[in-house]
């Protein structure tokens, strides 16, 4: 076939240009790319909730305000715990890359415990607010605060579920062959949830205290 005569049509390949011309950059794994795409939607989800909080946080209905409500030391400890869990997740990923499934399990458990620890502190904070009259229905501030931090807490809870679910799965004999993407996507999700908390802690708690 006379390929030279048709180059104006942008043809690739052909007798003189073998398959090498077709080698494209190694694509990202479907699951990893899918997770990134999903996280971008999650980012918009939290951005909307943060926007709602910004709009409504000054409407306190004569109740507690951000300044009077927040107990910064308590939340700070929770924050440290959650951020540490990102480290344990990364350590678990390292163990997986070394092919050490026992080490991976250890760090998955540690990450789950730290996640639960964060949720414990959040539960303590929430019950404290409820006892002081700041509830989901007490004021637009309360509503938007509990929606934002509550949805974040649900994401942490789902992450813990995911961690434990993966932990059970590591006992399958074929696990280490499929481990890379499975641990990688969970890690991406977990770090994302942590980053969202950094934003919430900064803009809701810290700015609430000074604002």
């Amino acid at each position, binding site marked *: *076939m006379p390929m030279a005569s*048709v180059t104006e*049509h*942008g*043809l*690739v*390949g*052909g007798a003189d240009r*073998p*398959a090498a011309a*077709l*080698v*494209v950059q190694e*694509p*990202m794994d*479907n*699951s990893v*790319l*899918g997770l990134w*795409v*999903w996280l*971008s*939607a*999650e980012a*918009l*989800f939290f*951005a*909307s*909730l943060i926007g*709602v909080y910004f*709009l*409504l946080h000054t*409407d*306190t*209905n004569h109740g507690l305000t951000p300044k009077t409500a927040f107990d910064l030391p308590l939340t700070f400890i929770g924050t440290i715990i959650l951020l540490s869990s990102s480290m344990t997740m990364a350590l678990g990923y390292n163990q997986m890359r070394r092919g050490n499934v026992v080490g991976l399990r250890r760090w998955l458990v540690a990450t789950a415990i730290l996640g639960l620890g964060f949720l414990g502190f959040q539960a303590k904070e929430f019950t404290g607010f409820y006892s002081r009259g700041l509830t*989901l*229905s*007490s*004021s*637009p501030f*309360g*509503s*938007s605060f*509990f*929606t934002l931090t509550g*949805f974040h807490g649900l994401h942490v809870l789902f992450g813990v*579920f*995911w961690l434990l*679910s*993966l932990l*059970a*799965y590591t006992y399958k004999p*074929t696990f280490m*062959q*499929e481990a890379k*993407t*499975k641990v990688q996507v969970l890690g991406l999700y977990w770090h994302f949830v942590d980053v969202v908390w950094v934003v919430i802690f900064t803009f809701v708690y810290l700015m609430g205290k000074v604002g």
Partner: protein
Amino acid sequence: MASISGTANLDRTGEATAYRGLMSWLTVVDHKRIGQLYLMAGLLFFLVGGVEAFIMRLQLMHPNGHVVSAAVFNELFTMHGTTMIFLAVMPLSIGFINAIVPLQIGARDVAFPRLNALSFWLFLGGGLLLNSSWFLGGTPNAGWFNYTPISGAQFSPGLGVDFYDIGLQIAGIGTLISGINFLVTIVNLRAPGMTWFRLPMFTWTTFVTMILVLFAFPPLTVNLFLQTFERLFHAQYFNVAAGGSPLLWANLFWIFGHPEVYILILPAFGIISEVIPAFSRKPLFGYVSMVLATLAIGFLSFMVWVHHMFTLGYGPWVNSIFALTSMLIAVPTGVKVFNWLSTMWGGQLRFTTAMMWAVGFLFTFVLGGMSGVMLAVAPADLQLNNSYFVVAHFHYVLIGGSLFALLAGLYYWFPKITGRMLSERLGRWNFWLMFIGFNVTFFPMHFLGLEGMPRRIFTYSPGFGFTFWNQVATFGVFILAAGVLALVVNVVRSAAAGERASADPWDARGLEWSMSSPAPAYNFAKIPLVRGYDPLWVEKLHGDGRMIAAPQAPGAHHAPPGMVHMPRPTIVPLLVALTLVAAGYGFIFSQLWLEVLALLLLGVSLHRSMFEVDPGEYVRVRPEDEEAMSAHG
């Protein structure tokens, strides 16, 4: 395709493709059959929404009409709009996207076949839940954009708005998953040589549409959650008395809602960009400008939401900015229209029914676009807002735009989807009845709007001067309905006993016409090599008219000779969707046990399926599909 590991079970060879009973539909993961399900469900919901519209037109035919009560009329227009947008036009678009995009890019399936099935079941479950409200004590009646405070607990005390919130939430999750799925599919699963600037326009518009889905649906998700919490758990977001803001709903809704209208129209643009070149025997004029215009429209669609709220009092500065950005969208849209006209210019035009719908689209969509620019003029909008002029405008873009294009796509791709041709003869009846009926129905609404008839009123007095044009409009609906009847008869008869379609009945240009009709389960016997834009046309000009198999990349999974590796069917997506729908009913009727049970089952099914690797199965390639491709040239 699902990741591949271990040895697949050779004993099940071909089983998945041979069996077509009910269970095969409930466990379906094949993108083509999921596309068929979307198309069938979308058509069904379209008929439901059409009946609702028909009743409304009967009510408005005479002044002081009493076909239905004011309360029922409110439910009718709410459910008509919600159904048509979320349950008819969107799923019809997603149906074509499912059926065609993997074929166009040379893929064997989508990136996540099981998630694809989950998307469909969530859409269907959400849609059925929403429509079950007709029988379960309380239909949504606050309009399709469901503004607060009228949709709040005080003014809508029944269950109707809860059905709206939770039904759309469930269907919306399905759409979001579709968005993720097709973005990954288009990025990762293109055949060798299918570069970004060789992507067919329908795939391009799908790509941009799915980006819009990805960024527009989260604000809707949040909005629906807020309203659900306010109505069920007495939270305070929209309640002015407690310091909340009813405008919050309106803003979040339209931040979703304007990209949503481009989610409805961009796939339609893509279809037109496929149909017109095929029947003009010319490549699409200005391909690159078409791609850039699509991206520009997608980008601008997030910048214009306040034009739905010019009358809410944001003042001249805000209104002027949003009026300008809104008018700006006319520029890339105009680029598209001129490109379509230029594609036809000098072409060998063939007026098949598909082409007639495409040309009809050009005519009506431009009319709808022009009334859109008129509405974008903020001072004019203060007069036209909430009048029948708006009703005329969005029906010109949604029917005259989206629906006409979808029908062009139906006549164009039906042979590939079903293996049979639609009747051209009935197609003529279908086109002319619907085209005339549509214009007779909706053109008079411009006049009614200019004369001051508000939308959503259930009746009017004889002295208002609205009677004549309302009667013309209702007369038009009868013609329109006859056209829809012709469509339904055509689809049902042709699907059962239409003329058998060849692989390439239109002598068309894209990859989707390179395999037999209907496409085999594995789409391509071998992954094709794409040697240019309009790949099949390139082979017709420079090859032997058949696609060449791409050389296999080193390290790729090798199936045994004569076999293709395909994902296995599974019932899990349907079960996951059922648990969510059950949880939805639990929340609507405040049944704690049902909520807990359903969410527990959801957790169990997620735990059982999240990490499972589909071993897949080998499907034997039919000899005729091998022959449909040339050996490597």
